[in-house]
């Protein structure tokens, strides 16, 4: 029966997804439990901070600059119709600090650093390095997963802050330097509109949540990958797809909680 087969296939997929969410949560808790050991050996975290944070700097800075410049151009064109070009500063800053900074930095981070983490851990598994560690009584979660997790959680808010700051500078370059919006009103309107607690700290909180989710997804997919070349490539794809979807969906939920009623 074709119908029962389809229904069965759908049910199987859903059960499988719930199953994976459950194992990912257990994996996340294990990583938290074993992170005490990795804080004692901080140089492991430093090494991972370099490969996930410092190496993502260039893409984050360039992307932030151009996103800010586009915002400056498009915002100016739209605001000009209402004769309120002076509000350009607050438009650029609010959209960057609240939304674009955390979200775009997290998307870039997922595809730049998350995929690399998955591939690395998946290959470690395929070449049986993880089993070898277990044989030597080294806990692979404490040695491999926890340092990468903390590196991701620490670097994500910093990257998002850099993205927003560079983006505001890009908006300034296009809006003030090139188009010629009044510099004083650009900064003054921005400072009047952006609140430190409500906008900037909420943006930081958002990027912190995204950093946690992206790193957990990337590490779990790598750790869970089938130990074949095909399995690793599939896991890398799943990391990018799942973490992008998770970022965008979580962003809606977080925005609804944080900015409602203002």
């Amino acid at each position, binding site marked *: 029966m074709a119908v029962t087969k389809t229904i069965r296939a759908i049910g199987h997929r859903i059960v499988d997804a719930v199953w994976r969410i459950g194992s990912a949560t257990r994996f996340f808790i294990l990583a938290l439990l074993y992170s005490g050991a990795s804080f004692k050996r901080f*140089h492991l975290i*430093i*090494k991972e*901070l*370099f490969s996930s*944070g*410092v190496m993502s*700097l260039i893409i984050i800075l360039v992307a932030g600059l151009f996103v800010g410049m586009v915002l400056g151009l498009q915002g100016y064109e739209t605001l000009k119709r209402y004769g309120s070009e002076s509000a350009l500063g607050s438009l650029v*800053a609010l959209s960057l*600090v609240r939304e674009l900074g955390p979200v775009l930095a997290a998307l870039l981070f997922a595809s730049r650093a998350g995929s690399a983490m998955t591939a690395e851990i998946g290959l470690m598994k395929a070449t049986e390095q993880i089993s070898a560690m277990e044989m030597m009584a080294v806990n692979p979660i404490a040695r491999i997963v926890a340092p990468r997790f903390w590196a991701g959680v*620490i*670097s994500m*808010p*910093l*990257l998002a*802050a*850099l993205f*927003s*700051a*560079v983006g*505001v500078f890009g908006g300034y370059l296009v809006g003030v330097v090139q188009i010629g919006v009044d510099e004083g009103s650009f*900064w003054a309107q*921005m*400072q*009047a509109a*952006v*609140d*430190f607690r409500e*906008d*900037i700290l909420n943006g*930081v909180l958002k990027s912190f949540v995204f950093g946690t989710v992206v790193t957990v997804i990337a590490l779990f997919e790598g750790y869970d990958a089938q130990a074949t070349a095909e399995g690793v490539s599939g896991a890398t794809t799943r990391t990018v797809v799942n973490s992008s979807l998770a970022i965008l969906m979580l962003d809606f939920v977080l925005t609804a909680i944080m900015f409602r009623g203002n």
Partner: protein
Amino acid sequence: MERTTLDLWVGMFVVAGLAALVALAMKVGNLGTYNVSESYQVYGYFQNIGGLKAKASIKSAGVLVGRVTSITLDTQRYEAKVVMSLDKRYQFPKDTFANILTSGLLGEQYIGLMPGGDEEMLKEGEQVKQTQSAVVLEEMIGKFLYNKAAEPEKITVPEK
């Protein structure tokens, strides 16, 4: 502990990230302009506050002198009670007039203070007695139309 170039790069990354955060807070946000000078609170009743919100600015002669702390409806008088926090450096006479004004045609609303001539100054917790409500555009148009209709048409008597 050994120092490596790796540490230097990571250190630079962390410092740059924190610097970006501080720059956002100071240059983009309102933390740089927010002066924590001492303030005193006064309140006033308005019949209609229009679009006034908490944290709206209070200006006198165009100079920012304080912020609106809270807006509540007083069910004793069915009027809006607006608590204003004013900078200690600026003292206002007791018969100061509080107006709800709009900056520009579609801008946000703020409270304008017009000082009176009283010798005594407003103190912490006192009431600003003279207030004027926000101008609601619909009401104004309604009044205008009503007046127009009530106006007797001028009859020009043709001269013979």
